[in-house]
């Protein structure tokens, strides 16, 4: 026994000596700069221009920190199940994950991700809190602790064809009634050639994401102040009625199965006079290689019907980088998170990819940003300022609430149920989910 100990002590002594020698040889300072050199991070991200830009710049990160990164990129819908399975198993398979801010509270509640404040004070080389758009950073703060940094964000706005509006003498809509009237005028005056308005109607998050504008703008909300479902209100029913009616009467054929892509293409091809969608669509409308309506599109805030709205009618979608609780390399993971969201990287991303969703104020003020996205920058900033962080509920059961609500939206859009009935059913299901 004692012999074993003396052997191990001997080994330790040799190792310590070797370490001193190596440190002396590399000059010490390098080890200070790159304390995590040689670590290998596993990162799960969502397919998006921002992610492409991060991937292209990974060699810079490795050069600066000595940390290697294995990046796995999957579509948004698949990313959450993937990380949830690893999180719940506590596997540590991913050190860093990218997730929408609607999941943050759930992740914190289930103890899947770690607070980053200590790392932020200790390793602040890339981190500048003041440079983030405040409304993008806020969802990452739970109980005064920082749980992630925003990688990209977007809001929603109303896009309309300036040329058609001028031709038919239509003013920019300020309420949902204005939208309906404008859509009717377009359909009538173009003899049905041009669709009045196109929006996403596919069952699930697609339809709910857009309908939520109507819900908030009509004075409704998903949840009451005490955390119960609030979908069985007259405001919600009116919002769903109006949404479904304008799409059925003046929308495109096939709207009940239209997702982001179909909707965007229809508008880009000049077949519709209006659409209400994410601000990132602006980048596609103004890109001559994919759009026939470059320079013809006007951008305006999402309409509001009532003066007593409980929250903004434009969305605030933020995708953040979070560090997994089960990660064995949380410091290195933090360095990656702060580097990928740093202003240097975000400004750089504008040169490599169509990244209109930057979260850095410096990047938004940069020349590259103004040159590319100047046409809709102001409308986007206005939408952001009114962007509603609770636009889609952020409770842990958010996904299930969206699923139930999506069925109601789809039923009314397809004409198989009345708004009041469909929402009453969704309301019961949501309340059941909320107590689970």
């Amino acid at each position, binding site marked *: 026994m004692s012999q074993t100990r003396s052997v191990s002590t001997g080994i330790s002594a040799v190792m310590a000596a070797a370490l001193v020698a190596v440190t002396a040889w590399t000059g010490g300072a390098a080890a200070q700069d790159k304390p995590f050199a040689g670590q290998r991070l596993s990162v799960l991200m969502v397919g998006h221009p921002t992610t492409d830009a991060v991937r292209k710049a990974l060699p810079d990160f490795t050069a600066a920190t000595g940390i290697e990164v294995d990046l796995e990129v999957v579509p948004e819908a698949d990313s*959450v*199940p993937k990380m*949830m399975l690893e*999180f*719940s198993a506590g596997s540590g398979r991913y050190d860093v994950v990218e997730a929408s801010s609607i999941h943050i509270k*759930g992740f914190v*509640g*289930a103890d899947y991700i770690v607070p980053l404040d200590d790392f932020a004070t200790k390793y602040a080389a890339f981190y500048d809190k003041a440079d983030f758009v405040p409304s993008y950073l806020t969802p990452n703060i739970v109980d005064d602790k920082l749980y992630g940094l925003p990688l990209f964000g977007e809001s929603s706005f109303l896009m309309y064809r300036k040329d058609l509006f001028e031709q038919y003498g239509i003013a920019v809509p300020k309420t949902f009634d204005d939208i309906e009237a404008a859509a009717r005028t377009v359909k009538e005056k173009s003899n049905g050639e041009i669709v009045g308005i196109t929006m996403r*109607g*596919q*069952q*699930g998050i697609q339809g709910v994401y857009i309908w939520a504008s109507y819900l908030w703008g009509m004075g409704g909300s998903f949840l009451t102040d005490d955390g119960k479902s609030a979908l069985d209100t007259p405001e919600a029913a009116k919002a769903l009625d109006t949404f479904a009616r304008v799409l059925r009467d003046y929308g*495109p*054929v*096939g*709207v*009940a*199965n*239209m997702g982001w892509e*179909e909707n965007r293409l*229809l508008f880009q091809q000049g*077949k519709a006079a209006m659409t209400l969608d994410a601000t990132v669509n602006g980048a596609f409308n103004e890109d001559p290689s994919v759009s026939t309506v470059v320079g013809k599109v006007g951008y305006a805030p999402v309409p509001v019907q009532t003066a007593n709205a409980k929250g903004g009618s434009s969305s605030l979608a933020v995708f953040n980088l979070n560090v997994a609780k089960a990660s064995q390399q949380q410091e290195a993971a933090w360095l990656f998170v702060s580097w990928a969201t740093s202003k240097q990287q975000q400004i750089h991303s504008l040169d490599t990819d169509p990244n209109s969703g930057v979260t850095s104020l410096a990047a938004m003020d940069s020349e590259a940003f103004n040159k590319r996205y100047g046409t809709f920058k102001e409308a986007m900033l206005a939408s952001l300022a009114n962007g509603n962080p609770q636009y889609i509920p952020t409770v*842990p*059961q958010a*996904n*299930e609430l969206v*699923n139930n609500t*999506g*069925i109601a939206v*789809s*039923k009314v*859009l*397809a004409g*198989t*149920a009345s708004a009041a009935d469909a929402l009453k059913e969704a309301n019961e299901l949501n309340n059941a*989910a909320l107590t*689970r």
Partner: protein
Amino acid sequence: MHPISRNPTRLFYQPVIGFLALAAFALLGYALWLCLHNIYLMGTKGTQFVGLQNFVRLATDWRGLQALWRTALFVALATSAEVVLGIAIALFLDKEFRGKKLVRAVILVPMIMTPVIAGLTWRFLFNAQSGMINYWLSTVGIAPVDWLGNPNVALYAVLVADIWQWTPFVVLLAMATLETIPKDLVEAARMDGASEIRVIWHVILPMLRRTLAVAALIRAIDSVKAFDLFYIMTKGGPALSTETQNLYGYTVAFTNFDISYAMTIALFLTIVTNIALLLLNRFAMPKGVR
């Protein structure tokens, strides 16, 4: 005599069978354990034993029951259409003609195609605004049909895609069997003056019966599990009109993260499927296949 010398091959297959059985029972046991608890990945209450609560919930879950009915409808329609079309095409191709090999290769293309690609292709074909199908209809003066956005039509649109993809499987099996049918038998029937329809009905089809029963069984099992086409083409919408039990289970597991209830749905579907297929096996299969 020593048992090993009586049947030495058992040393090769018994461990394998034993291992497979062990894996099957371990998984089944774990599945049952999941069903009797309330595992919810987004919850903070921890895991409790809940007895049969998940099964009671399923029995009163209107959405789940409708999904089960839709699954049954889809399986019945898809399987019967694929078998009937498959035989028809195989009989049509059962002649010697130039380019037969090429035709056979082309027929296999849908089956080889990844379901995701097939789903996307059909999704674009069925697109109400700019899809090819509505364009062709418009050339003969038919108004655009809302294939995937109309809850009364969407399930049948997915069905068309499924039939397109999997009929070749039946064709393939039927053609292989047709080639083994002795030609003189068919010739003899013709010599005796039987019409072509009688030849097919009384001579060829009875010989195809086993093959078709097996093909139908395999297609039925696959249709119960159909997922990719639904996921790509409609995601269960509009208005739940294309949500099968399988898709519902997926949503409960990977959207709601209600793992225990999802497992209950999956287990229930497995049991129902097994019973249905045993009945099919018992009553529809010719003796000798069983």
